[in-house]
């Protein structure tokens, strides 16, 4: 176990590791984009494309939110570097998802788009999530942390939890009958939230106990 831990830590610190993970996470996107002209996406390729990019957005968001718990559980601090990469990749998939909607669903008819976003609840929710995601992607840099200050930056980036909730609602409201997948993603996020709540609770109890001792 210790050996595994050591070699995992070494792997995480290998110079190319971060890039390899990013490239790996972009493979599904490459398959989807190439799949439209190459006919890999079945009978209704654009429907497949918009569904799959939406789902990958949720998967990358779940990966982003898994980094901190995983780091805590394993003690592999090098995992930290992946959090920003996964966060940005979440935005990339969200951007492609939103672009497919704008171009292929709405035909770039801006008047129609502006009517559609507030009119349909699942679009409203998805759009809100995307705007928040864009804000977080724009401030996903060391520079933004410096400019905002670490405390405020952290507070701003708590919006990621809102994005996860909105993303699941967006999915739940669009399916016709089969809620298996939205419920699955909801459960994954609920678990990731529960870990954080449990740790925060524990920390608070610890602080109180320490204060009591002092």
């Amino acid at each position, binding site marked *: 176990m210790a050996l595994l831990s050591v070699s995992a830590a070494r792997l995480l610190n290998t110079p190319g590791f971060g890039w390899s993970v990013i490239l790996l996470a972009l493979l599904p996107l490459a398959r989807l984009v190439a799949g439209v002209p190459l006919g890999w996406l079945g009978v209704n390729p654009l429907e497949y494309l918009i569904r799959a990019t939406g789902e990958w957005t949720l998967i990358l968001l779940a990966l982003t939110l898994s980094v901190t718990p995983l780091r805590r559980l394993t003690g592999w601090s090098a995992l930290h570097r992946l959090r920003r990469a996964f966060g940005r990749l979440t935005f990339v998939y969200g951007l492609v998802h939103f672009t497919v909607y704008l171009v292929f669903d709405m035909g770039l008819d801006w008047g129609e788009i502006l009517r559609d976003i507030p009119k349909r609840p699942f679009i409203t929710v998805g759009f809100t999530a995307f705007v928040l995601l864009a804000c977080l992607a724009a401030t996903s840099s060391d520079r933004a942390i410096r400019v905002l200050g670490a405390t405020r930056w952290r507070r701003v980036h708590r919006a990621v939890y809102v994005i996860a909730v909105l993303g699941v609602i967006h999915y739940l409201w669009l399916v016709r009958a*089969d809620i298996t997948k939205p419920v699955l993603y909801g459960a994954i996020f609920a678990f990731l939230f529960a870990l954080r709540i449990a740790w925060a609770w524990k920390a608070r109890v610890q602080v109180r106990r320490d204060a009591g001792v002092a």
Partner: protein
Amino acid sequence: MLLRLRDRSSPAPSEITPEALYRGRRQWLAQAGLLALGGAALASAPLRRSEAQAMRLAGVTPNPRHVLASDEKLNKVEDFRSYCNFYEFGMDKSDPPVHAKAMKVRPWTVTIEGEVNKPQTIDVDALHRMAPLEERVYRLRCVEAWSMVIPWVGFPLSELIRRVEPRGNAKYVEFVTLADPKVMPGLRYRSLEWPYVEGLRMDEAMHPLTLLVLGAYGETLAPQNGAPVRVMSPWKYGFKSGKSIVKIRFVESQPKTAWHKAAPGEYGFYSNVNPDVDHPRWSQKTERRIGEFSRRKTLLFNGYGEQVAHLYAGMDLRKFF
């Protein structure tokens, strides 16, 4: 009720003898299958028949009034057979083509009951002989905002209705589709109430556009497309047209249909294709025509307004969606 007689441009029943040959072949296959099975021990085993294989339908005449529009293309038969909703076989579009193979489509009977003078159980082979088979190209618009163009084979449902003599108080026709847990894995999920029930108002059922469908693309229906018998009212969303029908009931009050029961605010009894009445969660203004890249504008009554708009004269289509 005023019964419209169909014009007799289509062939008389006597002209379609090859169809009998085809059925003979079917029986021969069945007997051969039985012989092949042989042995008393095996006699009770489920009969594996080649019914899942689509068979060429003979004596089908294209109806000249329902041919392909100049700006449209027929969908590929693979599209039709691989992309369909049939929740009894699973909720993913890829499920029905896989699981529906297990459905036995012969022997198959359709029971006619309720407010009719001649309630009866009709064998599907008798349905094939009931009226001349015609081919009609109809648009199929799914409530999920995709569409296809399909060459259906069948005859007007009114042919059947006329023969069973509905009584005056038969105001609606209810279609009950197969619910066999042995072959339908989707029945385990309570996504809808089983069996799937759909219905039409009597005048909609009698409308010459409403087809009793026995085939498509010149062949018997693939199981996932609703073999061996389904209906098709092309001006309504696809889910209104029940598949693999086992019972047709003539009733006085509006049937409680499956999707309406599951989500009354989202799926009305009428469910006529209407670009101006959105699904509460998505737009119905446009549709993805399978095989085309950009979306098409959805047409009121799926483009069949000239023939059917009068059925809904004076009705608020937003209220009766």
